[in-house]
């Protein structure tokens, strides 16, 4: 069954990749950060683009814009209109923090035009090194499939070990599928 799910997911990713993504309009939205978040746990910023998809009248999956979405985690929240980029803190990963500073999950809830959807994505070490290594997950779809940015992913010999020192990151693109 998992193989079938993987194939379906792969097919969905390929189909999604066949069409140009809708241009992100408007400036990035900066999330409101909880005052209780210790500043020592964050360093700089990270961001994700929120996109929404639905099935059109022909039953074809296509991107839909102008959908209001709420982006919410334990430490920050924002309201955006898809497709839009949201900026939020970059969370340090370190042994000196509880649970190595893991910031928890990020939930994106979208609703508009009689359709709604939500997707929760977990934070993972941003295994993103400038150079030949590019392991960041670029897009997470609400059906669970993932794509990697750039298509070429070369794992370093000790990527797992190096990942222990990288900040926590959410997907660069988060896609929410809307259902009636």
């Amino acid at each position: 069954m998992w193989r079938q799910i993987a194939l379906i997911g792969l097919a969905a990713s390929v189909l999604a990749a066949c069409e140009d993504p809708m241009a992100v309009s408007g400036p990035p939205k900066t999330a409101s950060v909880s005052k209780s978040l210790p500043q020592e746990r964050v360093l700089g910023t990270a961001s994700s683009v929120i996109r929404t998809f639905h099935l059109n009248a022909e039953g074809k999956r296509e991107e839909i814009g102008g959908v209001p979405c709420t982006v919410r985690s334990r430490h920050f929240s924002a309201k955006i209109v898809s497709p839009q980029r949201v900026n939020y803190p970059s969370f340090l990963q370190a042994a000196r923090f509880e649970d190595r500073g893991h910031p928890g999950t990020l939930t994106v809830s979208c609703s508009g035009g009689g359709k709604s959807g939500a997707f929760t994505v977990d934070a993972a070490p941003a295994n993103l090194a400038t150079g030949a290594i590019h392991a960041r997950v670029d897009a997470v779809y609400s059906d669970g499939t993932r794509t990697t940015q750039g298509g070429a992913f070369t794992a370093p010999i000790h990527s797992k070990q190096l990942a222990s020192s990288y900040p926590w990151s959410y997907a660069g693109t988060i896609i929410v599928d809307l259902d009636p």
Partner: protein
Amino acid sequence: MKKIIPVGLVLVSLAACSEPLIEVTSAPVKARIDSSVPQERIAKGTSELTVRAFTPPEGNDVRGPEVVGATCSLQSDELSATAITPQVVILPKFVQKKEFESRGVPGALAIRCTSEQGDGTALVTASEKNATGVYANSGGGLATLIITTAVTAAVASSTPWSYPPNAHVTVVE
């Protein structure tokens, strides 16, 4: 992937066209090792990390004018230091051993700089070999936040972990 190397060369070439770096005249500062770090994790030898601060670039410049006198704190699970830009920080190397958690890789060094020209941050991660440090800016998302060096499969698994030689922090008002 082959395209990445030429892009890197172009970046290095462009960096070379910017204003020359200010000579470091202050004495190097040695990072403090946290007392909780077992001695067996510390390898022989040290590495030097030159901390510099810059204002944001304008036009096609790679970086803006260098900032002298920015106060930068460096903090990781194992190390801490304070540097006044431009200054060299002497860092220990860490033993790479499969018996250690994550093969003994040290934590990332979080750098926070404050100056009259503004504040900036950068994150420096360890790698298995020294190479030309990659310049990073603050506030541009993860892709430009991390300073590290590329790790290749050719690197021996027993090479000590060390940090890259340069940390360039962009300070923004």
